């Protein structure tokens, strides 16, 4: 009896200690996420993990978990003191960047350093948002059952980079000579054994880490190279061409993800719900009774058949619209073998920070400006 009691007390004590430890860990985790104890980027990464958890377990995106990703702002400047990134000095208009305490000035000495900064930001963005492996954005329950044709891509603006044209010009740095694509192809990520291009193109750092570029299959190599001028890496090259068109250009590094449901997913989800209705206690009996009664009346059978065919046709049409949207959003950043059967994609775009350009690729922005 006494032994039993002691055993019980020890058990209780262990339970309490375990509870306290678990509670401590959870508290630490949540405090770190909700307060700015961690850097903004680490906070973003943690919120990404938290959001992706339900999708890993339940195949459902935890869109109720808000992403905690703040857009980082950089001003590329040159010279001893550096300058400000004003939008248009001639017109006397202050750009977004002026007088903002969250702008980090980056001093550069040449074009290569600008390319390096942009390549780093692309790398960080891709890594922070889960390297395209995590499903972060949901199209909603209607899409899962093929009941809507309204599909949008979601974006996180990881960083905005503006240029202080005046000091850069004084230093002899020409923005139009910045070749980000070339830099990403030729330079390795600091501390890693793969280049920026290899890392992003493979979508798997582990896979790249063990392979050098020369060991890459010819097919992959070709795919990377064929992206020049288009898509993920191509956008970077596009920036090289677009940059001189404005007085003080500003670019955005944007993570984009799009996913649309496939025919088989819609079918499984629909059958799951319909089947579930027959199994549920109470509801199931009513459903079975309804079917039994309805099946005896021929007109109801015909109506049910026509209704079923109409719903199926609508679902098929919506899934096709999703596929079409997927092609629109993803065709330029799709690298063979990484696109989920053309029904979705993830990518990082280096694009001008222009509202029309952003609107073209992003249906919704999920980052904090």
């Amino acid at each position, binding site marked *: 009896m006494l032994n039993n009691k002691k055993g019980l007390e020890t058990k209780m004590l262990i339970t309490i200690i375990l509870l306290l430890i678990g509670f401590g860990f959870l508290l630490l985790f949540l405090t770190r996420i909700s307060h700015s104890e961690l850097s903004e980027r680490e906070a973003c990464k943690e919120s990404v993990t938290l959001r992706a958890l339900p999708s890993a377990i339940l195949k459902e995106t935890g869109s109720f978990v808000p992403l905690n990703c703040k857009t980082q702002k950089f001003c590329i400047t040159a010279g001893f003191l550096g300058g400000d990134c004003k939008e248009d000095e001639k017109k006397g208009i202050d750009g977004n960047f002026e007088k903002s305490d969250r702008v980090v000035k980056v001093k550069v000495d040449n074009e290569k350093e600008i390319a390096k900064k942009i390549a780093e930001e692309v790398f960080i963005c891709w890594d922070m948002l889960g390297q395209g492996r995590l499903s972060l954005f949901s199209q909603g329950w209607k899409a899962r059952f093929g009941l809507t044709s309204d599909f949008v891509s979601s974006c996180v603006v990881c960083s905005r980079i503006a240029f202080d044209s005046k000091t850069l010009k004084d230093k002899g740095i020409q923005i139009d000579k910045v070749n980000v694509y070339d830099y990403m192809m030729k330079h390795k990520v600091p501390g890693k054994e793969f280049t920026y291009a290899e890392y992003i193109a493979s979508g798997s750092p582990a896979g790249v880490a063990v392979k050098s570029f020369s060991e890459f299959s010819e097919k992959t190599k070709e795919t990377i190279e064929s992206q020049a001028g288009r898509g993920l890496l191509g956008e970077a090259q596009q920036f090289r061409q677009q940059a001189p068109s404005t007085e003080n250009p500003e670019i955005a590094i944007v993570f984009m993800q799009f996913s649309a449901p496939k025919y088989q997913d819609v079918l499984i989800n629909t059958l799951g719900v319909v089947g579930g209705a027959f199994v549920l206690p109470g509801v199931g009996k009513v459903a079975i009774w309804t079917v039994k009664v309805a099946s005896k009346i021929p007109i109801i059978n015909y109506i049910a058949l026509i209704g079923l065919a109409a719903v199926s046709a609508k679902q098929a049409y919506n899934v096709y619209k999703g596929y079409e949207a997927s092609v629109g959003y993803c065709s330029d950043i799709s690298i063979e073998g990484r696109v989920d059967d053309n029904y979705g994609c993830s990518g990082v775009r280096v694009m001008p920070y222009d509202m029309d350009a*952003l609107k073209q690729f992003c249906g919704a922005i999920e980052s904090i400006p």
Partner: protein
Amino acid sequence: MNNKKGILPEEVMKLIISVLVIVGLVYLAYLMYSFLRTPTEVRQAQEIVKQVASRINALENKGSMKLAGPKCWFLYAKENQVCVGCKNIGDECERKICKQDDERCIPIKKELSVSFKNENQIEVYFNEILLEKQNGNIIISKKL
């Protein structure tokens, strides 16, 4: 008697630990609740209005801002404040569920006032605004 004295502190310890655990769990639940209850779009709107107010306060002559905020949230002026709020305006926003408290306002400097040039409010969803200072009045217009 000795037994009783020995048991008493042990029971008190258990009670204290239980209370501590319960208080901790309540705090944890509160943290979780406050983290999850603020949707991304509210936080985006909060940040946008903060930035607009800060730009207005620091504006010397002219300025522009690119607003990449949530759909169906509008920027408008209210007395001496600049606000963003969720509104069911237009076809696309008609079915949006806007809560009553979906409004965030930030007061600007007392000596300044804000007005809108052509429309009373501007959607913060992929829009660029121009700010112009005229005799202490900040005029906001949509950049076309």
